[in-house]
């Protein structure tokens, strides 16, 4: 397999994670997919800037973050509805339990969406993607203490919001 084909494969594998990352930033799937599309196109135009042997995922998430900031961040043209609900698979689930779980998940996403953007991006990188604080700090060019305090504020706000809604942590 040639080098670009392997890269395309690796980038394809990243798409679901990129969609999730962009969804946390953008608040709806359609805008998120705009971010991901623009990010993938930008990556393809700038492949010479990625060093083989270094982390492709970090490079890609950094691009997505920059694309969000530079091109896509604006009042959404598609406000309001929680489109992730539509992605649940209905088949074979216990009726009452699934309704409760979906309701809880909706509440969680709504709580994330009201976080300030600089906290949301850290929730996306550290909680969703599992990057270490040090890695997130490098990717966002922030001091590690800032990363940790922003994230801790985010979690406090989320916990408080969810407790008020009757959703445990």
């Amino acid at each position, binding site marked *: 397999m040639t080098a*670009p084909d392997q890269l395309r494969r690796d980038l394809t594998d990243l798409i679901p994670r990129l969609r999730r990352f962009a969804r946390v930033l953008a608040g709806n799937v359609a805008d998120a997919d705009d971010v991901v599309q623009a990010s993938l196109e930008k990556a393809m135009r700038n492949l010479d800037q990625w060093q083989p042997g270094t982390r492709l995922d970090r490079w890609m998430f950094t691009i997505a973050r920059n694309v969000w900031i530079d091109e896509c961040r604006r009042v959404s043209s598609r406000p309001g509805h929680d489109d992730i609900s539509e992605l649940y698979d209905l088949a074979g689930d216990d009726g009452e339990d699934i309704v409760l779980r979906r309701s809880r998940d909706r509440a969680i996403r709504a709580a994330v969406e009201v976080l300030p953007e600089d906290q949301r991006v850290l929730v996306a990188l550290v*909680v969703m993607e599992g990057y270490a604080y040090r890695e997130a700090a490098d990717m966002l060019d922030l001091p590690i203490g800032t990363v940790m305090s922003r994230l801790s504020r985010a979690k*406090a706000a989320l916990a408080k919001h969810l407790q008020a809604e009757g959703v445990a942590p």
Partner: protein
Amino acid sequence: MTAHFSDEDLRAFLGGQLDDAAMARVEAALDADPELAERAERLLAGEDLDGLLRNAYAPLLAAPVPERLLAALAGPATASVTDLAEARRQRDGAGGGAGAGPAGVRNRASAWRWPRFGALQFGAMAASLAAGLVLGGVFTAGDRTGAGDALALAGAAGPTLPAAVGQMLDTAASGQRVRLARLGEGEVILSFRNVDQALCRQFSITSGAATSDAVACRSAEQWQLEALGKRPAAAGEMRTAGGDAAPAVIAAVDGLIDGDPLEAEDERAALNAR
């Protein structure tokens, strides 16, 4: 003075439960002390909230990938001269353009791009274009045994052009012959706009028995080389507009052009506009 923070302190910080002044103190300490930062990170392991957050977005992770995102990866990194016809067929077939119009030029609203020079280093490109395009390094005008100076100089962001060539591209009308010191005789063949509406020009430089053809597009600061090719110099004075140039260069013009080449007065206006 080094403050010592207990696990309790760190938990309180991580839970956002300290007042602003205390938060600031711990934040500064975390910046300064990598060991403390490590401790703080370990304390957060196994936090329930994390699991809930991940679950809330899990359906998106499991969902099938939309076609348009896969299509975003089907683009230029391995576009070669032989693939251009296929790429054009796919693009025009998908309704991206009006197809071939008069004289073979076409209008399109496509986002297809000729790759930046660096990307050309991959794969099949190297084999099919070994005779023409330069892949980094220095490409000399004139024949190999001659003392021709470098036409394209390897730069950090890709090949750059010598100042005299840039000067010609900035000022010379298409069809006008220009003497370039140490490089040979230059001539701009045609000018056009790419999909970003940047000004691009196809030109050639003849020295001795060989002619180098090239296409460059103007960015804010300088002319960026998009393609380069070489062929034996045309016999006599007759050259059709762009028709005899090296295939890689013809293909590049075809891939870049948005609309038709500029007419003389539009070209003049474009050159005067800077």
